């Protein structure tokens, strides 16, 4: 379940103690990293593509106003409608207005993080419209009343017995004594159930991985084919997406696609990559009669020109969370944000405010793995550091931390004193801990030592070692 942002520390503690979640994490984590590496090893051009992908996004963001206007004009030229929405509330209202005007009662949905961001499903339900999630992972979460714990593998935290239990409970019309021998049996049952929904839906809502300015095209990427059934069969297709998804051309999109699937699932290419441009044309026998794009800002335009601009490059591949030791320990729900992991730690304070989301950019070891695997080279640790600075400047961090930093800063500005003090501390701690080699408890660090031991220093400080080494080298 999505937990509260403010309760991050409690959430994390309970996640570490959750046996089912820990089993799911242990299974999935090495799998993602291994598959990504294998795909990259097969493509010598990967680094060049990464650099090109970064440059395409930077170029687009620097001219975002131009490319959005060009994109919108092309959508309209193809017979579609663009609904510009500053806030989540605007976007929900735009979707409802489209549904009301077209007499829509049921909608199928492809996987979309932006619709999670604007909490579209409860809003539609409250207004008498039934949304049906069709991505297999999103489908079971809807049955269970849960939110995604990962941006590309939403049901990442569930084990097979959870699926069986939910299917038995929700598909009560099927024989109660049926046996799920393999995972495939679960998949087949969901396929049968959702087929009826695809055929009955009045509207289909999808997200977009990319929006192409030159042609007014929305691009979605799926492995299941649910997005294509969602956007092809119903009368109305609504694309719910956000402004940073725009790229100039088809060729730019192809470069980004080459790094997307490899970084995400380790596939060379997703099964279905679909380019949609406007509604059904004059002689067409299928396709939607209406094509709408609900284009959300929700704080993104305010990132342009700031130290957080680089975050607008994000293509939502999830490589950062797949390689993150913090995500790997606690999973996605503990973050209390729609977007978990390193990318979520940078994006969430932008969407929800640093007051509410201050714990997230602090939940990092700064190991740098996220930046090293990012297909568009977002300096995630640096961006988290900027949030920590803002939090400190606005006096949002706890008093003990602020006093501690103030004391440290006083010493750090006086190098001779700093070295003497740290040397004394290192030698003193080393002497006191010489028997056990570690401390189970230390004054002023009780919270830290509660869950781990502090190793006793072995010998002198880093500075002393460094100075000695430099001296030896110059001789």
């Amino acid at each position, binding site marked *: 379940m999505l937990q509260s942002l403010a309760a991050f520390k409690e959430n994390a503690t309970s996640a570490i103690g959750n046996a089912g979640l820990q089993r*799911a994490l242990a299974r*999935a984590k090495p*799998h993602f990293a291994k598959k990504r590496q294998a795909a990259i090893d097969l493509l*010598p051009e990967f680094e*060049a*593509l990464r650099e*090109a*992908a970064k440059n*395409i996004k930077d170029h687009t963001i620097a*001219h975002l*106003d131009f*490319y*959005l206007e*060009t994109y919108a004009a092309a959508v309209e030229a*193809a017979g579609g409608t663009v609904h*510009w*929405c*500053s806030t989540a509330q605007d976007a929900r209202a735009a979707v409802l207005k489209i549904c009301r005007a077209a007499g829509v009662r049921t909608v199928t949905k492809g996987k979309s993080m932006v619709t999670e961001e604007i909490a579209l499903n409860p809003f539609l339900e409250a207004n008498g419209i039934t949304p049906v999630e069709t991505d297999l992972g999103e489908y079971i979460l809807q049955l269970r009343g849960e939110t995604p714990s990962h941006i590309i593998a939403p049901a990442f935290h569930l*084990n*097979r017995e959870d*699926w069986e239990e939910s299917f038995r409970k929700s598909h009560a019309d099927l024989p109660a004594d049926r046996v799920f021998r393999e*995972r495939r049996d*679960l*998949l*087949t049952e969901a*396929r049968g159930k*959702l087929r009826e929904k*695809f055929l009955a839906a009045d509207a289909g809502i999808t997200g977009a991985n990319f929006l192409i300015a030159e*042609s007014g095209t929305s691009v979605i990427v799926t*492995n*299941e*084919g*649910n997005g*294509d059934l969602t956007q*092809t*069969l119903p009368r109305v297709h609504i694309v719910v997406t956000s402004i940073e998804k725009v790229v*100039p*051309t*088809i*060729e730019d999109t*192809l*470069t980004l*696609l*080459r790094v997307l699937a490899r970084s995400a699932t380790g596939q*060379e*290419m997703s*099964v*279905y*990559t*679909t*380019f949609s*441009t*406007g509604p059904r044309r004059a002689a*067409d*026998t*299928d396709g939607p009669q209406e094509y709408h794009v609900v284009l959300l*800002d929700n704080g993104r335009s*305010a990132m*342009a*020109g700031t130290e957080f601009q680089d975050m607008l490059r994000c293509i939502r591949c999830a490589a950062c969370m797949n390689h993150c030791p913090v995500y790997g320990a606690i999973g996605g729900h503990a973050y209390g944000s729609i977007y978990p992991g390193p990318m979520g730690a940078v994006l969430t304070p932008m969407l929800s405010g640093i007051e509410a989301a201050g714990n997230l950019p602090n939940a990092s070891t700064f190991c740098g793995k996220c930046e090293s695997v990012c297909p568009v080279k977002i300096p995630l640790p640096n961006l988290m550091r900027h949030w920590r600075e803002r939090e400190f400047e606005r006096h949002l961090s706890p008093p003990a931390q602020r006093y501690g930093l103030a004391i440290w800063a006083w010493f750090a500005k006086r190098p001779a004193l700093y070295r003497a003090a740290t040397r004394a501390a290192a030698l003193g701690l080393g002497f006191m801990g010489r028997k056990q080699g570690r401390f189970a408890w230390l004054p002023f660090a009780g919270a830290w030592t509660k869950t781990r031991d502090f190793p006793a220093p072995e010998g002198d400080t880093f500075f002393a070692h460094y100075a000695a080494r430099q001296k030896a080298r110059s001789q």
Partner: protein
Amino acid sequence: MSRNAIIAAIQRGLKRGPLPTDQQAMLTGRLKAHPRGPIPARGQLSLADRIALFTTYAEREFATVQRLAAPAEIPTAIASYLARLHLPPTLTISGHPSLQSIPFNIPSLRIRFGTALPTDPTCLTLAFAGIAETGTLLLPSGPQTPTTNNILPDNSIVLLPAARITASYEDAFDLLRAENPLPRNVMLITGPSRSADIEQTLELGAHGPRRLHILILDGQG
């Protein structure tokens, strides 16, 4: 109005007003030129080797591939494929002229041209191009190539003229750009439908076709 507010916020962030006309012209020029990014070397091969690479990658992604020498071989190939898998001898065929002209002369194979119905088990569609780089098919929509036929049936059989197997996605889109305007829907398909949502373990046959059978037809441009 939201549109103006969003555009104004972006310009404020970027610390400038609307782009000067010379810069707009430069960006319009880039759109017209649509420059390519780095193209993987692995597809840059002779046609024969592109066909081989396409086959390798398509099979790696769990498609099956069969090579045919002439259109006359298509009906038998399809009939025996369906029989081998114990599938109903029923085929819904997209109404493209290249598919209409196939000499279907097997009485046991029931065929119908048009858009797939939910009860249709198998569709035959025509690929506009194949991409050697990843064993990917390119299928554009049109009055005679409905998207539904790519995605709704349990079994998808795709005819791919060998000469249309390109090195890269870019080469395939160049062919498509030549037939301006861009079709309403363009699908890039790499293997049959699948999901790894249950315990991150890959299972074939999610919502799209459970099987993808590609017929590579020699000697056609």
